[in-house]
């Protein structure tokens, strides 16, 4: 327990607090009046309003599109289901930057729709909403579908036998059981879209800006720390509120439901209606998920002189790449992998210890800690990145020039994934199994090694994969602290996108494709070692 608490205190609480106090204190006094000043500005109000409504709209749209998908994945058996489940999860771990560029390639200037029909959506809010659906489809499918697959269909049958119609049976039996999971998924989607940064940075243009983007602008471009501090605090409070509600719904979800083996509830679709639903869901998945990824890959190969690997080759040297970097962009791949590996190791140690501590203890304090672990997911990554810069630059913790800074920031977003993945599995280990080992003469450490470790090894691998993928894609904090001579993949992509010219754009697409393939590879490897209760978001 001590290690995770210290880690979060030092690398999360301290930098965030430092940023906030730097913005809100002047001459040794707190200036809370600034809240009123800042929140009174029409521009800020506009940003707040947009942040809220786009998050609400994205959530509604995601639910509308993904709930049928959740049903299909839960109740139907069809060829390629395993692979498809992995594929729809790929976007969730994809770097936001890649998502942004994929939609740019699809909907933007010179994009696929532009070429075909002259339609451009990158100047409208639709691009953002669609990218958010793309991103969060898997959250709903996995959270709701995971539970749905384990609900005993015989409950619904019992209601039918008792005289309820098909719809009534669903509404009175299945829906109430499902509602907490739907609520939890919706809150998670809301949280992710509320704090959206990379997608909006790339697709929003000058018109659309969320709190997170605004914090970045105020901090990095306008150097207006007080405003950034106020906005950070506002976002922090909002995220904390969302997480508190989420924790409540998750607890309700854990309430006594009779769950069965998912393998027993799925069957082949019957009749035109069910096949139609399956086809519809597959079609939507193809349009929404495969198409942007495919277009991204296609653009990366499509140079001015037809198809070829020109953009990939250009990544190989400093000179060919157009002088955007001090090093060859391909070095960013190697950097990213190293950073992500280090971040994964940190996240596993910290998250593993936290999960172990949460399993052994119960009570209000522990539940609070549980929710606290989720906080980095929703806190402004920009704030964390900038906070790192201003707090970790003096002895005894002078890490500014150290390579470890980037993995530390990335590990912060990795830890919640590790905890979420490990916790259900660790909790499912029967305590009496540990007692059985103890009575047979195993010391506590030995019990952990002999009983816990073998049972959670798979979960540990899955957690590592998730942590690796999100570390690889982390953008908001890394963009601040990665040094110019050591860029990571997402940072390099963003920098290419920020520059004009076909070569830069093409290289951005090429790098994004590389990043996508690495993430997808990690995820597909995970799907092979799938565990029953993974990905509880």
């Amino acid at each position, binding site marked *: 327990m001590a290690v995770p608490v210290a880690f979060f205190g030092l690398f999360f609480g301290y930098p965030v607090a430092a940023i906030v106090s730097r913005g809100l204190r002047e001459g040794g006094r707190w200036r809370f009046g600034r809240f009123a000043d800042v929140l009174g500005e029409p521009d800020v109000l506009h940003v707040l309003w947009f942040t809220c409504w786009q998050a609400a709209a994205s959530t509604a749209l995601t639910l509308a599109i993904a709930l049928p998908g959740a049903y299909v994945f839960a109740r139907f058996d069809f060829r390629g289901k395993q692979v498809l489940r992995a594929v729809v999860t790929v976007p969730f771990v994809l770097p936001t930057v890649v998502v942004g560029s994929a939609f740019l390639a699809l909907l933007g200037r010179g994009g696929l729709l532009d070429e075909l029909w002259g339609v451009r959506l990158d100047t409208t809010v639709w691009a953002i909403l669609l990218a958010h659906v793309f991103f969060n489809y898997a959250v709903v499918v996995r959270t709701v579908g995971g539970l749905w697959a384990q609900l005993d269909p015989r409950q619904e049958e019992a209601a039918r036998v008792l005289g309820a119609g098909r719809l009534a049976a669903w509404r009175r039996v299945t829906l109430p059981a499902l509602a907490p999971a739907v609520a939890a998924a919706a809150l998670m989607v809301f949280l992710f879209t509320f704090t959206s940064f990379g997608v909006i940075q790339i697709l929003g243009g000058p018109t659309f800006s969320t709190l997170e983007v605004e914090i970045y602008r105020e901090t990095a471009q306008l150097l207006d720390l007080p405003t950034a501090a106020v906005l950070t605090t506002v976002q922090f409070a909002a995220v904390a509120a969302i997480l508190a509600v989420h924790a409540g719904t998750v607890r309700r979800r854990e309430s006594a439901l009779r769950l069965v083996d998912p393998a027993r509830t799925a069957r082949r679709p019957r009749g035109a209606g069910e096949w139609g639903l399956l086809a519809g869901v597959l079609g939507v998945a193809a349009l929404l998920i495969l198409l942007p990824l495919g277009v991204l890959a296609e653009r990366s190969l499509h140079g001015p002189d037809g198809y070829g690997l020109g953009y990939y080759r250009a990544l190989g040297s400093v000179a060919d790449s157009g002088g955007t970097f001090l090093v060859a962009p391909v070095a960013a791949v190697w950097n990213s992998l190293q950073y992500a590996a280090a971040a994964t190791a940190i996240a596993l140690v910290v998250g593993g210890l936290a999960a172990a501590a949460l399993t052994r203890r119960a009570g209000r304090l522990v539940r609070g800690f549980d929710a606290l672990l989720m906080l980095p997911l929703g806190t402004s990554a920009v704030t964390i990145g900038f906070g790192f810069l201003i707090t970790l630059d003096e002895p005894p913790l002078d890490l500014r020039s150290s390579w470890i800074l980037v993995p530390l920031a990335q590990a912060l977003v990795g830890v919640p994934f590790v905890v979420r993945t490990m916790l259900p599995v660790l909790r499912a280990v029967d305590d009496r*199994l540990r007692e*059985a080992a*103890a*009575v047979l003469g195993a010391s506590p450490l030995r019990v952990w090694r002999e009983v816990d470790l073998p049972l959670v090894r798979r979960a540990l691998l899955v957690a590592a994969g998730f942590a690796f993928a999100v570390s690889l894609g982390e953008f908001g904090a890394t963009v601040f602290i990665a040094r110019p001579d050591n860029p990571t993949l997402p940072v390099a992509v963003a920098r290419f996108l920020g520059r004009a010219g076909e070569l830069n754009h093409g290289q951005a697409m090429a790098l994004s494709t590389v990043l996508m393939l690495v993430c997808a590879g990690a995820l597909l490897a995970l799907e092979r070692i799938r565990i029953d209760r993974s990905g509880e978001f």
Partner: protein
Amino acid sequence: MTLLRLDGATVRFGGHTALDAVGMEVAEHETVCVLGPSGSGKSTLLRVVAGLQPLDSGRVLLAGHDQSGVPAHRRGVGLMFQDHQLFPQRDVAGNVDFGLRMRGAARAERERTVEELLELVGLPGAQRRAVASLSGGEQQRVALARALAPGPRLLMLDEPLGQLDRGLRERLVVELRGLFRRLGTTVLAVTHDQSEAFALADRVVVMRDGRVEQAGTPLEVWQRPASEFVARFLGFDNVVAATVTGEAADTAWGKVPVPAGSPQGAGRLLVRPAGVRLVPATDGLRCDVLARTFRGDQVTLLLRPEEGPRLEAGCALRDAPAEGDTVGVSFTADEVVVLGG
């Protein structure tokens, strides 16, 4: 020699007292069965001895040594859990030799012990089988072998046969008793099933609400239940309020003879079904036959007397009256017990 002794062992969970000043002893090579309904504190008792549950007050002594502060893995006792708790990720041999590995035994010794024990519990050659592929009875045997492998000085069994079906249970009880005799194992078992307890134990201890209600040999407890609770728990329902004077008692069923030397005065009285004799309806207490239950060549009759609570009577199959018949009943003194408490 006394191997296990509990002195005023007390465990509280919040406001609920799971063990209330329990004292008991288990001698070496003895099999003791703790018998009681669920919630009577039996399992807590085992957990206390194993060191999995700390005491709020009192002491646990193993071979005369106070065990307070000795963690579970250093107590050298074996515990077989109610639902076995086999390690799912290991095969049969991996489960059975677990305790030996913890003690750092050499591979050859472990392999030999596993082979011997699997032979002993009737699963020869099952070393490489997956735990999940075993039936309930087989899991039971593996769990027993695992508990025996490190050679514990005291073997504790929590509802050892609880989840098995009836036929298997009756066979295993006999096997277990023979096995413990041969090995000279000291055993402390808990169960809620009285037939299991009486078949297995040298001595039984009946518990109620965390207290010891009665302790003695199976015969003693069976013949002379110490209280109405014990009597009813053993399945005797012919219990009635009585006033004992000399060798007879006044009850709602009329005069009932009692054995010589019974406690005098007001109290409760048990008539075992064997002591309820059927006589012609004109003699004795008139009863209607409400129901019949067949147990082999014995029939248990549920009777409704003219007065007083319902009665159970045992009789031979060929003598059994039909449902709805009216019979007479008389009582025999040697199946009557005046209960204390």
